[in-house]
């Protein structure tokens, strides 16, 4: 507080008090177009840091009984380019490379052979809507074990038949509910839902659950983050 003495004039005291609002004036940097992208990306990075900090691989996403599952005809389709990129389902393989002991091409049969998980979880779109879907597939963690992935690697990068691409932190990939999903509603994935293989990540925002996956790379360095993320959407976006 200002100590009013005989010498300090009202004007001088109040001017000094006004200068103490400098932290508020600093927010003006957000109004400078040249600084805006940097500042907002910092904000987003801080949000990701916090969200990754309190993400726990052992904390499950809520699951729901079949009676609460949204009917398939009311499960929205948000394909980024095409509802059917024309995948040759017979010839499809998953190309695996990067920090893995057994790189190569994996067939759907090899993924089918892994323990099958069936779970009904909430799918939340960044737009704001949500549905409860029924999903079946192998644990992403089991796929990583199948290919001998280095679990200390930081990221998984995915490429898709429709040129969509995504990436994922290893902690989320090891979450027991993260699926290499090949069934929805107890039937093989339909083309519009990403046949023959899609990601299903109940601990992530919807756009992270890429469809039509054709390639998995285990890596410590991401060349690119994801189709939507590279346009400015949040990368970690854990739920």
């Amino acid at each position, binding site marked *: 507080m200002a100590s*009013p003495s005989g010498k300090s004039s009202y004007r001088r005291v109040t001017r000094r008090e006004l200068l103490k609002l400098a932290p508020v004036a600093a*927010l003006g940097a957000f109004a400078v177009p040249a600084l805006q992208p940097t500042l*907002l*990306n910092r904000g987003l990075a801080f949000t990701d840091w916090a*969200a990754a900090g309190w993400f726990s691989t052992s904390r499950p996403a809520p699951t729901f009984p079949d009676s609460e599952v949204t009917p398939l005809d009311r499960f929205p389709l948000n394909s980024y380019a095409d509802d059917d990129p024309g995948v040759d389902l017979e010839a499809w393989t998953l190309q695996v490379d990067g920090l893995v002991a057994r790189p190569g091409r994996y067939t759907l049969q090899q993924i089918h052979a892994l323990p099958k998980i069936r779970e009904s979880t909430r799918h939340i779109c960044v737009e704001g809507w949500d549905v409860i879907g029924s999903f079946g597939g192998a644990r992403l963690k089991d796929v990583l074990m199948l290919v001998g992935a280095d679990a200390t690697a930081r990221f998984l990068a995915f490429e898709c038949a429709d040129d969509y691409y995504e990436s994922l932190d290893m902690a989320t990939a090891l979450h027991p509910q993260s699926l290499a999903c090949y069934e929805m509603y107890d039937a093989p994935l339909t083309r519009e839902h990403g046949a023959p293989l899609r990601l299903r990540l109940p601990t992530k925002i919807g756009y992270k659950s890429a469809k039509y996956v054709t390639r998995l790379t285990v890596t410590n360095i991401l060349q690119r983050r994801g189709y939507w993320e590279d346009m400015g959407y949040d990368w970690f976006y854990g739920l």
Partner: protein
Amino acid sequence: MTGSTASSWPTPTEVHFDTSAAPIRAAYEHPCLVRVTHWLTAISLFVLVGSGLQIVHAFPSFGPKIPQENFFDPPQAIRIGGWLGGALMWHFTFMWIFMGAGAAYLAHQAISGRYRMVLFTLKDVPGVWPMVKHYFFFKPRPPVTEPYNPLQKLAYTSTVLFGVMSVVTGLALFNTVQFSWLSRAIGGYSLVRVWHFLAMCGFLAFIPGHLIMVALHGWTNFVSMLVGWKRDPEYHAD
């Protein structure tokens, strides 16, 4: 300052500045931290509401996606961020400024004891209606016995509750899996978005009244939120 020790709240300090001209009577009303957090909150609230409405625009409904029934699609003039991804950037950045300012303000209120001036409690309930009659029905002003009248206390305490509500519902919305217990506690995920929206509505209900009162109470009242000192206050320290 030493006079009315009976009151349980700190009274504004009143001093006479010596200038070459006439002495200036002024009272130190708002400590620096209160002023800084007030303006940080005001600015971040502006950004959070604008970007929040841009986020609402992406899906202006609280129901299912199929079939979608729009509830309220905010016009472009009141949206911030330009597109959904841009709005999320602003929202996810300024939520930290909002929370930081709010936490600092509440800690300061608690430690300094100033909360006793503005916290609405049961004993303030009887005084609310006379103030409402005064402001809205032009009835005589009830005698002023405290720095903040019961209606002011109600308004300021409500904004703190709306702030807490927006942070809690925002957390349940943003991290609904990590804080699934929180989502459940406030009525399930489908209601979390509604509660978050209602918290914003609470702020929006406060702001017009707040600005009108500031305008009615004049320039010196506004200046005191900038420099802390209010010139020629209508009250006397002792």
